[in-house]
């Protein structure tokens, strides 16, 4: 086990930020911590890193208790913070080299690792640039390079794609996958469910400092009653017809808004067929038809009664 958190409790005065949290992260996986802002994700990460004091519980990393003096453990951890944490006075190359040299003593090795990190985040053309001259996306890449240059076994990314353009975001996500393929275990915190779904092997959904659901994305989706969402463009629909649709088998909820009929159903065969049949039988004209599998947002919504972006 790479990380083992038992019964972690962290308070900020009267606010309970982490509430008896338990997590076990296995070697080689990309583990997602998914939750809305203020749910306790960053606090948990800072506790794992022994930056924050906590009130109760224990944290083990690489099967050893984590403390500020655990230098051997720290040597194998790389962190990419939510905000860019680099020196404004150093160039791209100097920044990566400086942070790498905090982990690696050999001068030649530092040089080699720095060049590898630059290549990994494709910043070869910007090595002599100061951070103030870089765009937001390039800065994020520099931030990542500073965190992973020393080739850590455990990489913790705390919302690395916040305020990043789609192109840079994809590049970052591809990079994380690559790091994982190269053998690193990844802890990835985000409030973007699409990202978690895209790259994480297992996901813990956190709210108010508690793990409310944990598993693979399939396991999480299986936890909720919604099996399918069907959306159909319908130009007119009577109230009694809406009522009829709601009474069809396996229908959980029906909503008609802006010429779009949205129906949520439990898992079952012929869900789409039975709704389309109803519309045709009642000569109700329709155009576009969409079907969707439930998302992690649906999981969160069903468990907490609110959306992830609330």
């Amino acid at each position, binding site marked *: 086990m790479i990380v083992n958190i038992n019964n972690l409790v962290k308070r900020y005065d009267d606010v309970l930020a982490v509430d008896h949290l338990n997590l076990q992260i296995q070697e080689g996986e990309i583990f997602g911590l998914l939750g809305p802002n203020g749910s306790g994700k960053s606090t948990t990460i800072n506790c794992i890193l022994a930056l924050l004091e906590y009130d109760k519980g224990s944290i083990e990393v690489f099967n050893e208790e984590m403390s500020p003096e655990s*230098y051997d453990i720290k040597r194998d951890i790389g962190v990419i913070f939510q905000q860019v944490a*680099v020196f404004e006075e150093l160039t791209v190359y100097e920044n990566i080299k400086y942070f790498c040299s905090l982990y690696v003593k050999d001068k030649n090795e530092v040089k080699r690792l720095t060049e590898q990190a630059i290549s990994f985040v494709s910043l070869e053309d910007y090595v002599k640039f100061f951070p103030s001259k870089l765009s937001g996306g390039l800065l994020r890449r520099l931030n990542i390079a500073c965190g992973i240059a020393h080739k850590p076994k455990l990489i913790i990314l705390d919302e690395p794609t916040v305020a990043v353009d789609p192109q840079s975001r994809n590049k970052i996500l591809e990079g994380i996958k690559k790091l994982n393929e190269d053998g690193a275990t990844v802890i990835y915190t985000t409030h973007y469910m699409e990202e978690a779904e895209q790259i994480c092997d297992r996901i813990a959904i956190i709210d108010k400092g508690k793990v409310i659901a944990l598993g693979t994305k399939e396991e999480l989706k299986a936890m909720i009653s919604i099996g399918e969402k069907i959306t159909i463009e319908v130009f007119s629909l009577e109230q009694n017809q809406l009522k009829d649709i709601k009474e069809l088998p396996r229908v959980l909820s029906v909503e008609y808004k802006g010429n779009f009929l949205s129906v949520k159903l439990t898992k079952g065969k012929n869900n789409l067929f039975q709704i389309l049949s109803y519309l045709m039988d009642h000569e109700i004209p329709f155009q576009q038809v969409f079907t969707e599998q439930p998302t992690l947002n649906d999981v969160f919504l069903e468990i907490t009664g609110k959306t992830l972006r609330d």
Partner: protein
Amino acid sequence: MLKLYMTRVKCLIRNKSNVFWTFLFPIVLATLFHLAFSNLNSSEVFHSIPIGVIENNEYENTEIFIETMSSIKTSENQKAPKLFEVSVLEKEKAEEALKEDKIIGYIYPKEDMELTVKESGIEQTIVKSFLDGYSRSVNTVQSLIELNPQNIENILEDIQENNAYLEDYLQGGSSPDTTLNFFYSLIAMACLFGCFWGLTAITDIQANLSLVGARINIAPMKKMKLLFCNISAALTVHFTGILLLMAYLMNVLKINFGDDLNFVVLSSFVSSLLGVSLGAMVSALSNKDLNFKYNIMSAVTMFSCFLSGLMSVQVKYIVATRVPLLQYINPAHIITDAFYSLYYYETKERFFLNIGLMISYSLAFSIITYMSTRRKKYASI
């Protein structure tokens, strides 16, 4: 460790704001002071008082009087300028010269010396005092001779023997210069600007104060090692700045700091240490953001320098007479006084008292910084 130190030095010298305030601002201010004060000392140079003496052949002592008046100097130093610039004139020419302000007055030598002036003033008063003294002396001698004519030789010997019972004594070998305090206060200000270097040195290694600090705290590096590197780098860069300022003041502006260059360098180093350690302590004690701390330290530095006489020497005098204890707390005053005592006093007691105070304060600030930063985990970030 050397690598970390060197990178830190690189970081610091690329910080434009700090470089401006530490390296350039004091030099610019010193130049402005120099330009503003360059005429101040020359205006204090004594010029001989131009005075006319009317030729009076009827008064037998006229020649002796003129000789006496011409020989008086402003001090006992052989090189000192003459007190009076005597011109022997006819009465009409003397009146004309007085009208044209070529002389400040003219004397008609006789039993009761007669002085004619156009207006009253310091120079006229000096001439009047001299004449009164001269008349008194002449009368005294005449009275003594009349009373004891057989002892005339002894009386004349006594008159020629000039016994001085009071003597001017400068404690140092240097002559007083009223503008020096401004430059010393300026150095104090530049030294206290070291607090900005101390501020960033600590902020950059504290996880609760900066993002870079958080990144550094998760690295497998002993915090005290980083603290030592950062403070050493801050001190190196700041002290270099102070040495440059001193070199500029001494070599370009020709400001006098006394003869012992080693003590000047020692004062600069300890003053720089005081500034850096003060900033480090403030940074370690407060969780406020860096800009807030910069503003606070700017205000503290300027007020401290104001009390030490940067803006007006009178303020320094008022503090010294009314709140003397404040002098020993005010870092700018201690720094200023160290340079002041180095220049003015021959003995080094006062200088070493100031150096001792600075080292004590620096040590206290460093201990407080260490106690505050040795904390490994934070309550919040």
